């Protein structure tokens, strides 16, 4: 590991030179990051999932063309220009990974968490998903459940529509959105 002080100096030098060349402003970096810290995150994806749970026609459109369906809710854009929603059912469980880097559906889930970017997750999820889901995420799937691992190696960005938990039949969309976690939309949790 490189020394933290050195890393700080290297980053500051880059920002200083880009600002002093006039290529970026003193405000640019912080304002961009703030967008991802406060505006774009898994709450958006949770809205999409809750809407799909309560609106079968929307769910059908979402599974057929997630990009267009998410735009109906004004959700889309950078690093999610083409979205794919895959549905988890009692028969089929999807889980998303990017083995080559860290591709992730930013407009619905924000920027990826550390575990998703980790070499352990990237190496092992494609080879032994049943083990990783059970041992590292506590998701034990029946042997009859088919697992599909989606490796986001090109330009489509995936998220999963988890199964709606039993006992939530009377809940409204907002309350449902409150229980949809980031992990359930990557496929490493069931609700």
């Amino acid at each position, binding site marked *: 590991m490189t020394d933290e002080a050195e890393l700080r100096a290297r980053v500051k030098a880059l920002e200083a030179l880009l600002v002093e060349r006039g290529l970026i402003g003193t405000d640019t970096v912080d304002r961009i990051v703030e967008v991802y810290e406060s505006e774009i995150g898994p709450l958006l994806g949770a809205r999409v999932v809750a809407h799909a749970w309560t609106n079968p026609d929307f769910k059908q459109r979402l599974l057929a063309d997630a990009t267009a369906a998410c735009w109906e809710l004004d959700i889309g854009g950078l690093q999610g220009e083409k979205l794919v929603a895959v549905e988890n059912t009692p028969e089929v469980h999807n889980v998303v990974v990017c083995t080559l880097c860290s591709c992730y559906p930013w407009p619905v889930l924000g920027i990826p968490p550390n575990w998703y970017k980790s070499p352990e997750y990237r*190496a092992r999820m494609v080879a032994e998903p049943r083990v990783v889901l059970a041992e590292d995420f506590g998701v034990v799937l029946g042997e009859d459940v*088919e697992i599909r691992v989606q*490796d986001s190696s090109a330009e489509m960005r995936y998220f999963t529509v988890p199964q709606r938990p039993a006992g939530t039949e009377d809940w409204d969309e907002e309350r449902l959105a409150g229980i949809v976690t980031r992990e359930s939309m990557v496929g490493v949790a069931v609700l």
Partner: protein
Amino acid sequence: MDGPHDLGGVPGFGPVRFSPDDPLFGADWERKVFGLTMAASTIGLFNRDENRHARERMSPEAYRSSGYFEQWLVALETNLTELGVLDADVLRDRVSDPGEIRGKPRPELFELFQDTLEFGASLDRTVAAPPLFEVGSRVRAVSVVRPGHTRLPAYVRGHVGVVRRVDPAFVLPDTNAHHDGENPEHTYSVGFSALDLWGKGDHEVRVDVWESYLEEPGEGS
């Protein structure tokens, strides 16, 4: 290219350290690296593919011993100096004594970023030729990739799979990363059986590939 980034199925890794409450950034410099990369890409200093390629060119030792945002930092330094945006000597001197950052805000750049954020920067393109393969086609992932950047994971090379979905045509990363043109191609989601890939397992791995990464499966397969 074959590189340290191509991790699918690589043995030897232990448990995933899963923590649902991890902060997005572990330190302020990581936050800055993310913002700098997004800013540099917004103003077009480099494209996504060359940014990825700069990380992949790290030595295996350096790649594995660096955290995620340190890899991003190396890519920034590599691209900005190789593309002539910053002089390597000037950068080195500044690292040894960063001093204060002198300049002014540029709100119009943030507005430009917001436009990119909203409308995206899609690399989908129209190509005249119809797709070579259709849903259900059996296809083989090529065994040999060209030198330089590619998005065909090593673990599927030479293996036969089935086309599960035909996707839009996108700019080919293999040439775009090297400024050799966009050369858009149709892309596909191809399903491979775990048993075939790994000799064990009952799952399917779906990998997204550009058309030139695929060939007819050939006799006897």
